[in-house]
């Protein structure tokens, strides 16, 4: 199991979802990924994508200007 980070700052939805999806495709079951975004829409969208595709949403939070989502890849 490995940990990865994805910088999706400056990208507008649905691009953070697409980047997450494309990266997760190459990861293994149990790997964790932290996605950093600036578009507030990513909080809902990346979380929804996670639920739909059966990955584990470890944490999703928004502070003043950033959204941070932690995912565990499930297969």
């Amino acid at each position: 199991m490995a940990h990865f980070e994805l910088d999706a700052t400056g990208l507008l939805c649905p691009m953070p979802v697409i980047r997450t999806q494309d990266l997760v495709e190459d990861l293994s079951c149990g790997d964790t990924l932290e996605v950093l975004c600036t578009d507030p829409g990513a909080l809902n969208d990346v979380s929804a994508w996670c639920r739909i595709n059966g990955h584990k949403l470890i944490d999703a939070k928004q502070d003043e200007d950033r959204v941070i989502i932690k995912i565990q890849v499930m297969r």
Partner: protein
Amino acid sequence: MSRQIKAVSLISGGLDSLLATRVVMDQGVHVEGINFFTGFCVEGHTHAIRKKDRAKPKRNNALWVAEQLGIKLHIIDVIEDYKDVLINPKHGYGANMNPCHDCKTFMVSKALEWIERNEFDFIITGEVVGQRPMSQRKDTMPVIARESGAGERLLRPLCAQHLPETLPEQMGWVMREQLHDFHGRSRKPQMALAQQYGFEDYAQPAGGCCFLTDENYSKKLVDLWDARGNREYEMDDIMLLKVGRHIRPSRNFKLIVAREEGEVNFMQGYRNRFISIKTTSHSGPLVLVDGQPNEQDLQLAARITARYSKGKLADEVELEVCRPDQGSMQVKVKPMPAAEMPEAWYV
């Protein structure tokens, strides 16, 4: 044991694709969704920009639909490939810059590539005969099936009974009599079916889910192309057409004037790529300058910027003009009176 039949459904996020997918799922077919991001999609990035839109659900409707249906959704970035569809549509444009016929053909052809790569059996769309003047007519729907290459592997469950039998019907993967015979522009059959399934709170955007069907957006796109002398565009261009007041005093430059705080926040992210102007002596909007302005043009841009500030009636307004990677300079100008702004400048 018989093989599980699999279909991919084009999910726009609207009601029709939601229903079409569910109709096929009910027949025991494994369905996954596919959504194509062209850059012109109405949602996502536009949610949080303007105050008037803040009451709308802050969600990606395609993801919401997939979650309602309990299916996987694959969102595909087609921004680059889509340029050729928009720039050279074989079947022309609709009322605005919407190449609906070619767009649908393109998306079905992309879905066909996807099902071949992933060993799925057929494609589902939520199209309804007679619902749209360009892409959803009885005479154009077979053309889309043919030109996309999907042919009989394209099933439109909501109006299948008005169309020739497709492969899924011929093979017995789905029962034709359990498909529908919807037609025309009325939404009542869809709403009744949605109620039957218990779907509520689905998206029903008035102008569809594409900015290219919007008259004002299309005018700005055409202006951009005319000013540049070609039809190329980048992602930044099409994003910025969605925000601000666009003012073009000359072919070589235009101003994008933020209309409210949400647009200011959105446009801040572009200050490292565009010349930006901001009043310093009075409160006022952020302005981005697109194009190749000379010093005289920037003076004019500053006067226009001042005209949209609280100092519009003042004798003199101070502004900061920032060039990416070149620092900023202070200028003082007399705000341009509204009467001196030709109507033709407003895009």
